[in-house]
């Protein structure tokens, strides 16, 4: 009996041990919660790359446009704190870990399948990204970047060498687009038209050569964006949830709790004042007013919603001297450059982004409180390089090479008018008013006594044509210093206007070859002799 018992116990024990086999397996290191890199597809990569590119351009456009008063810079009174190292960490990840690495892997996969079109797209996107990162940060990692474990601390390459590499990459892209390879299912920029991409690549080359001061090189490129139909831009959608594909400017203006951002008083005022007494007809497209009058000007004082509308409210003398501060008439209710005050309950009162380019509402003087879903629902565009901008750049090159900027400036204005007019879902602009505006501009232009005064007008129009952008404006402002009469910072002593940005926190903190800058006064390589700007 005892033996029997022992055998039973032994059997019982073995049974339990055998059933425990699943607890003794030791090769469980692969992650079942994601794909493995070997399961990647070029088509799926090119989708993500294109979307990420749009977000990255939109993000840096926001930085450029706020510094140049196209949009309102809020939150900080000192330029060195306007953008912190942390505020660029997301962009840096997007540029390298997401787009950069995705393009690198995608190109390998595409090369195996002869997908030259895909490679071209990757090259254009990468080249634009590299140029823009140099424009914002100066020297950046390139030759040692994207090596994974082989190099965890990529050294910085000079901005010049990155520019050279990007220009070569654009040539390679043009060559790839000329191969006749198949386009991907989703070409979110040119819908499968290789010639559009080639024009975009050439236009990017031109704007880079302009930064470099290589006017001959600039002028030698002729197959670029010479018609708005070839504009390099990204089209957003109207789906709010999962995925959210609405224009980011729309998201921040149209919500259930009112607008989350302010519009720039300087910019709105520029359009209200217009030319030779004529208001800019684009104003009803770019802005939407939720109220018909602004407290303190043509509306009753409203301390609750606009504190500075109260008579006797303290305004710093330098702002009073500039002449534009606090509020504009007619419900154009924005904020001044650098205003960092708290947020009153004005979300359904302040001016919000209009139909162009954010895909919001056309201002038909209905003065409604708009929110989620109103207007075009976010069906807007993010411009990357527009035909109008090329005209403005051409005008600058004309000046730099001793020519007359008039023709190109007027062409730029007209192109911009047509661009704004062409946005779907808004009443079309009266052709006569476009002509009239251009005529009035021409009158001001003719009256301008000096080249400087003309360039001020040129730059202001460039700025108005650039709503939704900002990267080229930040470059242009540093390059030539126009417009010179922008609204000053609220803080009388705001420190140096950022001539380049702090290195992103995730670069400076994690890369032993990179030290954070001590300030934002360093100029990027092509801007070493740039004018002083504030």
């Amino acid at each position, binding site marked *: 009996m005892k033996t029997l018992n022992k055998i039973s*116990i032994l059997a*019982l*024990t073995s049974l*339990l041990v055998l059933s*425990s086999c*699943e*607890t003794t397996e*030791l090769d*469980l*290191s*692969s992650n079942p*919660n*994601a*794909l*493995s*890199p070997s399961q*990647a*597809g070029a088509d*799926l*990569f090119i*989708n*993500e790359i294109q979307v990420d590119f749009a977000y990255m351009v939109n993000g840096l456009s926001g930085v450029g446009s706020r510094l140049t008063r196209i949009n309102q810079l809020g939150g900080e*009174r*000192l330029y060195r704190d306007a953008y*912190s*190292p*942390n505020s660029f960490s997301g962009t*840096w990840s997007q540029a*390298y*870990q997401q787009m*950069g*690495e995705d393009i690198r892997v995608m190109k390998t996969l595409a090369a195996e399948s002869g997908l030259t079109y895909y490679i071209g797209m990757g090259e254009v996107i990468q080249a634009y990204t590299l140029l823009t990162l140099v424009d914002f940060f100066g020297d*950046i*990692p390139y030759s040692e970047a994207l090596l*994974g474990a082989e190099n*965890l*601390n990529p050294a910085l390459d000079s901005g010049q060498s990155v520019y050279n590499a990007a220009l070569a990459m654009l040539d390679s892209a043009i060559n790839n687009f000329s191969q006749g390879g198949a386009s991907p299912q989703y070409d979110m920029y040119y819908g499968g038209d290789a010639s559009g991409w080639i024009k975009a690549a050439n236009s990017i080359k031109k704007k880079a050569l302009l930064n470099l001061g290589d006017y001959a090189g600039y002028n030698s490129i002729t197959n670029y964006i010479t018609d708005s139909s070839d504009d390099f831009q990204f089209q957003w*959608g109207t*789906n*709010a*949830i*999962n*995925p*959210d*594909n609405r224009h980011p400017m729309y*998201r921040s203006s149209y919500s259930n709790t*009112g607008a989350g951002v302010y519009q720039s008083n300087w910019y709105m005022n520029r359009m209200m004042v217009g030319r030779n007494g004529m208001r800019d007809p684009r104003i009803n497209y770019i802005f939407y007013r939720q109220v018909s009058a602004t407290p303190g000007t043509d509306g009753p004082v409203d*301390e*609750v919603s606009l504190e500075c509308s109260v008579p006797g409210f303290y305004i*710093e003398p330098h702002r009073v001297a500039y002449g534009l501060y606090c509020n504009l008439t007619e419900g154009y209710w924005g904020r001044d450059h650098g205003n960092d005050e*708290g947020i*009153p309950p004005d*979300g359904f009162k302040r001016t919000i982004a209009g139909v162009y380019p954010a895909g919001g509402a056309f201002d038909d003087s209905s003065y409604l*409180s708009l929110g989620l879903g109103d207007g075009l629902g976010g069906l807007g565009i993010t411009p990357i390089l527009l035909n109008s901008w090329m005209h403005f750049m051409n005008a600058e090159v004309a000046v730099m090479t001793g020519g007359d900027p008039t023709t190109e400036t007027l062409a730029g204005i007209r192109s911009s008018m047509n661009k704004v007019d062409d946005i779907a879902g808004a009443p079309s602009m009266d052709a006569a008013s476009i002509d009239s505006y251009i005529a009035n501009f021409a009158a001001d232009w003719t009256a301008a006594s000096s080249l400087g005064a003309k360039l001020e007008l040129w730059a202001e129009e460039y700025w108005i044509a650039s709503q939704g952008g900002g990267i080229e404006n930040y470059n242009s402002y540093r390059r030539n210093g126009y417009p010179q009469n922008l609204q000053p910072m609220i*803080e009388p002593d705001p420190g140096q206007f950022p001539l380049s940005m702090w290195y992103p926190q995730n670069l400076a*903190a*994690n*890369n032993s070859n*990179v030290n*954070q800058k001590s300030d934002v006064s360093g100029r990027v390589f092509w801007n070493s002799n740039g004018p002083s700007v504030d």
Partner: protein
Amino acid sequence: MKSLFRLLVVFLLTTQLSFAQKTVTGVVSDPDGLPLPGATVLVQGTTTGVTTDFDGNFSINVSEGQSLEFSFVGYETSAIAVGSGNVINVSLSLGNQLEEVIVTSLGITREKRALGYAVSEVDESQIESRASGDVARVLSGKASGVQVTNQGGISGSGTSVIIRGLSTFSSSNQPLFVVDGVPFQSETNSQGSFTSGNNGSSRFLDLDPNNIESVNVLKGLAAATLYGSQGRNGVILITTKAGSTASGTNALKNEVTINTSYFSNELAMKPDYQMQYGNGFNQNFGWYFSNWGPSFDEGGPAGWGKQSQINGAVSGQPGFLKHPYNSNLNARFLSRDLLPLLGLSMDSLWEWKPYDSVGDLFQPGSIVNTNIAFRGQSDDGKVSYNVNYGNLDDQGFTPGNSLRRNTLSFGGRAVLSNKITVAGTLNYSFVDFKSPPIAAAYSSGSSDSSLYGNVFYTPRSVGIAQLPYAHPITGASIYYRSSNGIQHPLWTVNNTQDAQATHRVYGGTTVQYDISDNLNVVYGYGYDVYSEDNTSYQNKGGVDGSVETQSGFYEKFNNTSSIFNHKILINGDYELDSDWSMTFNVGAESIGEEYDRNGTRSTGQNVFNVLRHFNFNNQEEIEYYGSKNTLGVFGQASLDYQNYLYITLATRTDWVSNLSEENRSITYPSASIAFVPSSILDFGNLPVDFLKVRASYGTSATFPGGYPIASTLNLDTKSFRIDGVDVTSNTTGSRLGNTALKPELLEELEFGIEANLFDNRLSAEISYFNRTTNDLIIDQPLDPSTGYTITSTNIGQIDATGWEVDLNLNWIRGDKFNWSTAINYTTNQSVVVDLGQNTDQITYAGFGSLGNAAIVGLPLTSMIGTSVGRDASGRPLIDASGSYTSNNDTNYKTNKYALIGDYNPDFIANVANTISYGNLSFGFLFNATIGGDMYSSYMMTLLGRGITTDTVDRELPYILPGVLSDGSVNNKMIDNATTYFGNLIVGPDELRTWDASVLRLSEISLSYDVPKKWLDRTPFGAASLTAQGFNLWYDAYNTPEGTNYDPNIAGLGVGNGGGFEYFNGVSAKKYGVSLKLTF
């Protein structure tokens, strides 16, 4: 099958067996003649034994000539030969208190004097009948070296337990819970992160504290070596009443115990709201978030008489405003014709007076807690059992918060006649936890719905209870603010919920075979499986959070988590010669862990308040699977020389499944020595009764979690949408898989001294430890230009040191009057020694620029954030508007002021007093947690919004201390709102950080044992009644007085972060009565 059947028969029949022996009865008492209940009476040389009943009586079958051994913890064991008589009364003499037997790792029992490391014990009386159903919170303050942080006063919310400070920041620092010898899952599965509402219980909530017999805390590595890597953060060794039966250590005769309690559960942290000023800014009225508006007095510079909105000019009635809902009317909020549906009209008014919104919302809850235990054994003591049922119904003071728990446990043990002992426990629990969402909140609104975030700063002139919360047609949230920018708290209560319903089964079986008197082999099987059903929802029409949240969501997922554990252990016990004896244990263990999460998240609600997936437009999968296996072999040998010198050597090797083959194993030894000089030295006239010195060296390892060496590729099926079609995309994984990753090695040196002095009136235990974490696993953030943003790697080192002191003082030891005091004191600090070449600082919890950072040379518990801008000599720089400038550089190397705090307290001390007189007993537990910082969204908002009594003095200008940019002393006058709002809320993080020192009356109790003679005619053997209170008083004396701030809050959830609070919790106080009956 046959043997199983036999087993069952034996089990059932054992109680019927009897032997041809005589019955001896008697009473076991202490030297004063008081009976000793629960003393063990054992027939020497056998395993036959009984324990005495409540009156010290025993009855045992024994043959003449055999000896009976009488033993009781704390008393000298005595053996008496059985003669011809049938009655043996024994008086046991007081033994040395430290010669107790305690349970160490893997259930191995040892004399405490033989241990070379620190072990804290907490007994039943310190755990049972408490208001909290959470064993970790009950343990708070009762053992040195243990730091317990509540996530807040939400009943059922998570709890963080840290023993001896942090030793890593890449893995959990929470200790291992072992219940009845089986590893017990104690993790906290939050629903979302701290920004989206980290509701979720810590799974030790599945234990009923009333079912716990004792808790031993193994603090050091040497103590926990045999538990392997899992024991690296210390071990909380819990013996349940079922488990104590199963282990045979504390079997009693048949007995039923009923323990029932009722407590009131109230908000402890209600601020002192000021009664002088209402909603507005700069003494002007407005429907703002802030409370810097006019006075509730009519006259004076700030009086409402000057306000056209209030003085009757607008409303027609002085002292009244127009109702906010008709001054806010717009198409998006509420149209005029809907007002009657809310009982309002265009003439409705709103009285200008202070309202008690917080008092109206947070009503006292109640806790009803009942536990019934049956236990007993056969007459020969060979078969014993325990059945325990517990029920907890805890209604929180937060509306929508409740915790219900049912627990059922069985334990049994049978000594078979064939040298086999079988024992087992089986536990089932069901825990149902519900709470409104409590996401991180800032000064206005929150990252997602947050009840607390939207309540506490309600302006004084706004009454939550008086304002309808739902749009009469859409059901959407409506509230007083004109852009409807705040979610009405009552809307949150009525339209949102986070719930976790958890079924859990755990327990184990052991089979022991005695090979000889000196050698046995034990096989153990442990299992712990829980199924946690999580439900979160919010109806459409909310205000906080993303568009997606506002569209309504419904999320349902299940976490099934299991641990299976097999263990085989050979135990030996040999006398080597007359001086030396040795015990050894050799074993092997396999642990399989599996975690499977599955569910669906739906967004875009169609019909309001219908909470089924079909009613939502979008569905997304919720999925995660993880499994990890660990194999371990271990051995331990203990040598005992003449009962005064003890040496223990142990080692363990583990293999783990989620690392590469060459790096998956690690061996870690330990050694300890205990020396009892009082056994061999004569201390002469010194009042030394007992003295022991000990030293140990222990090691352990930290294995990474998840899949750290795998490289992945992401797939997103909803990357974008073009023409109504979702676009699918690939993107490369951000984690660089590191196949060279290996486990962290922890080493610890510990020294201790234990002494009993002054006729055992004072006992003291002091420990010092120094622990080093080598090859620290760091989730190293990478420069994204490498192509990756993160990798797990072994660089760096952390050193932790600390002291633990336990003192027990018996001031008065009388027949009727007794007074004793127990004090414990803990201090420890973990310092980052090395982070590798590439990194100066790594933020491991919180946001990138505001959180806990590891910085070389600084404590691991450091907090970084933006700081006040300073000039070269460190003076604060004031900007042109008169407010502090801000320095956004949060890198300590370039801005030392970025270090805004350290959340580790300087020390924690607990003082427990027990004073008894006859049947009355009075006790209290007082806690002092001194030092440590807290970044508080709660305090900054209450002050910044001008709510509490701290801000009532406000009609004069302020000048901030500091210098202007030209170096001159600041002379810019600013007003109250700019001072508080413009600096505390808008300014740098540094200003939102306070010293979190706190004094607390943790527990206070008065209990009465009903005299036995009163019970003679009742069926009850014992009865006691206790009145208790918890957290009835505290004072965080360095925080603003009017906020009544309680810093014991884990704002970042149960993780390694600390010192940050985003309105995630407010503390509770509880008081009530308990009744305990035994029959």
